[in-house]
C-alpha cells in the first residue's frame, strides 16, 4: 500500500480535537494547485512538506486543456488525456461564401484531426468541395485526392469517381444539403499528410481519400467549392490522439 493510499475517509464531529496525523491526512487528500511544474516539483519532500508518492494529484495552471490535471505514477508526473474527439473550432457557414478558413487549428497537441462538414446549399449544382491545408494561406498543389461515389443514386450500386490535385475532396455537391467527414493524419508534422472520409447528399454518397506530399507543418484549414459559393451549415474541426 503506497503512502497516499487510504483505508478510511474520515469525517469529524463538533468539538472533536484532531491529531496532527488526522489534520495531515485531511490536508493531503486535496488537489493542490501550482502555477507551473517547477513549483509543483518544489512543493514536495522538503522540510514540513509531504513526501511525493504514487496517487498524488495536482493541477498546473500554466499548462493547457485537460493536460493541466496530473497524477504521479510513482516514477513520473503524467497528464490526464481526455480521449475521444476534442472540439478545436467550429464555424457556421455564411451566405454565398467562397471560402471558409480556419487559422491555427493544427498543432502538435493532436496527432490527427477530424473535419465534420455540412452545407445547406451551394450555388453550383455540380462541384467538388475541397479542404486545403495551409500555413495562413492555402496550399493548392501536391495533393492526390480521390472521391468514389458508391451509391449513385441511393438504392443502386453504380459507381463514379473524381480525382483532383488541388486539395482533398471533402464532398461533392449537387447544390443541395451536403455532408462530409474527413480524418487528417499528421497535418502538423513535417511529413506528408494523409486523409480519408466519406460524404453524402440527398442523391448519392461515397468515400474519399488522399494525401498531400509536402513535408510541411500545416496550421490552417481552408474549405472552398471548386466552383461557386457555399451557404449555410457548419464546419467543425476536432483533434484526437491515436
Amino acid at each position, binding site marked *: 500500500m503506497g503512502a497516499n493510499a487510504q483505508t478510511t475517509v474520515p469525517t469529524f464531529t463538533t468539538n472533536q480535537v484532531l491529531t496532527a496525523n488526522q489534520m495531515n491526512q485531511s490536508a493531503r487528500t486535496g488537489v493542490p494547485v501550482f502555477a507551473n511544474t517547477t513549483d509543483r516539483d518544489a512543493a514536495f519532500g522538503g522540510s514540513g512538506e509531504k513526501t511525493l508518492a504514487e496517487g498524488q494529484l495536482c493541477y498546473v495552471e500554466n499548462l493547457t486543456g485537460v493536460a493541466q490535471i496530473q497524477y504521479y505514477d510513482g516514477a513520473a508526473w503524467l497528464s490526464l488525456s481526455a480521449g475521444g474527439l476534442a472540439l478545436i*473550432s467550429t*464555424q*457556421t*457557414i*455564411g451566405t*454565398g*461564401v*467562397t*471560402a*471558409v*478558413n*480556419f*487559422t491555427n487549428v493544427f498543432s502538435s497537441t493532436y496527432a490527427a484531426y477530424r473535419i465534420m462538414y455540412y452545407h445547406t446549399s451551394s450555388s453550383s449544382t455540380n462541384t*467538388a468541395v*475541397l479542404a*486545403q491545408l495551409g500555413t495562413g*494561406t*492555402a496550399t*493548392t498543389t501536391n495533393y492526390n485526392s480521390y472521391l468514389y461515389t*458508391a451509391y449513385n443514386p441511393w438504392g443502386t*450500386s*453504380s*459507381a*463514379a*469517381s*473524381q*480525382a*483532383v*490535385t*488541388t*486539395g482533398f475532396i471533402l464532398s461533392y455537391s449537387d447544390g443541395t444539403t451536403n455532408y462530409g467527414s474527413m480524418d487528417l493524419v499528421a497535418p502538423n508534422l513535417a511529413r506528408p499528410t494523409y486523409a480519408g472520409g466519406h460524404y453524402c447528399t440527398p442523391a448519392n454518397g461515397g468515400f474519399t481519400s488522399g494525401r498531400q506530399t509536402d513535408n510541411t507543418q500545416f496550421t490552417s484549414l481552408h474549405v*472552398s467549392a*471548386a*466552383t461557386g*459559393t457555399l451557404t449555410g451549415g457548419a464546419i467543425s474541426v476536432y483533434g484526437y490522439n491515436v
Partner: protein
Amino acid sequence: MSNKIQIDGEIRDMNAKEILALEEWRERAQSDIAANETKNANRASALAKLEALGLTPAEITALVGA
C-alpha cells in the same frame, strides 16, 4: 459580384491577391474534374453498350465490377 471569404467567423470581401490565387487553383481543379467526368461518361457508355449486347447487370458487374 464579390467573392466573400470567411476567416474564423469573420466575413469580408476577398482582396485581389486572394481572388487571383482562387482563380488559379480553381482552373486546375475544374480541369481535373472535367477530365474525370469524361472518364465517367465513357464508362457509363461502355456499360450501356454491354447491356445492349445482352449481358445481364450481374454479368456486367462480374466483368467490370460495380
